[in-house]
């Protein structure tokens, strides 16, 4: 039904297809703006995922702390970053996980880009 999509390697634009798929997961992550909700998630992750009607795919991705799987399940990185924050993970930690690098290597790669002429 769609016009040919503009494919960008290693990148999943958060479009209507993804926004539909990820609504519940993103709604849960949006709730983490509130400290009480972060606490409730930490106290009983399963119950919290139930409350937001996460799909099986989303629950598995969250349980595995697997960012690429969360994105595949429709998660948007701006909302996912709030979930990551609960675990004390920065966007550099997320970058390392998604690119399969150690955090030190990921940081070093970024620093190296800054060194180049």
């Amino acid at each position: 039904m769609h016009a040919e999509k503009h494919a960008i390697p290693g990148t999943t634009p958060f479009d209507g297809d993804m926004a539909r798929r990820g609504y519940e997961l993103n709604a849960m992550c949006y709730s983490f703006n509130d400290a009480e909700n972060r606490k409730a998630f930490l106290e009983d992750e399963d119950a919290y995922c139930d409350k937001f009607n996460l799909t099986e795919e989303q629950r598995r991705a969250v349980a595995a702390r697997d960012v690429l799987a969360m994105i595949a399940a429709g998660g948007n990185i701006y909302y996912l970053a709030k979930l990551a924050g609960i675990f004390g993970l920065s966007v550099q930690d997320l970058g390392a996980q998604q690119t399969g690098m150690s955090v030190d290597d990921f940081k070093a790669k970024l620093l190296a880009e800054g060194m180049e002429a």
Partner: protein
Amino acid sequence: MAEILGGVFTSHVPAIGGAIAKGLQKDDYWRPFFDGFPAISEWLSEKKPDIAVVFYNDHGLNFFLDKMPTFAVGAAPQYDNADEGWGLPVCHSLKGAPEFSWHLIEHLVGADFDITTCQKMLVDHAVMVPFQLLWPDAKEWPVRVVPIAINTVQHPLPSPSRCLALGHAVHDAIEEWEGDERVVVVGTGGLSHQLDGERAGFLNKDYDKFCLDSLGPSPEALIKDTSLDIIEKAGSQGIEILNWIAARGAVGGRVVEKSRNYHIPISNTAAASLLLERV
């Protein structure tokens, strides 16, 4: 008639707020970025703007996918910052300029911009980090603010040309305002960065340089790309350049570059600041 002083453009990475909270401005990692700001702060304290019109994107504090506006314009008497979930200190509130906001809103809707009007609006790090950078020693923010949020989160995004047109319409509205306020335009976000996917950590110095070189003298060069073209060149979050493009449109006319800084990396981001004064 209101006077447009110029445009200030800066990255807004949350980690910058963390560094400010911890007083790390002089550390080796941070200094090359913070070094871009004294010139801008001095310019601001000399020019003394009354109002800042800030083009930014919300990162899931005020807007969610139930109601996601393409363009949202603040019309509140006050804008509060709030907890975004990662423990940044909550900044003190910003004073609004509601009469001025409503003037912009009247003009924009009259010019066929289908904005969402926000009489209540939380502003996130994309407003507060730049304010901390521009007015680092402020006990109280010395300007009133009109925040204008551009959707850079959920596709379809507005095109770069639509964002520039929005800026031009804001420019015209400011010029029409009968008050004698001095207005600075602020564009926040970017430059190249990507947080998500296998391409996380992607940067593009060449494209960033093109943006920094073009924004002042030839902003039209930046709107030849579609939003997806820009994402390909600048990374998923590099699309925040849309805020810079709209802000450049709002400055309008001819400008002279008074200050520029570019530094890799801040967190995952090629960070930059730019000051364009109106001539």
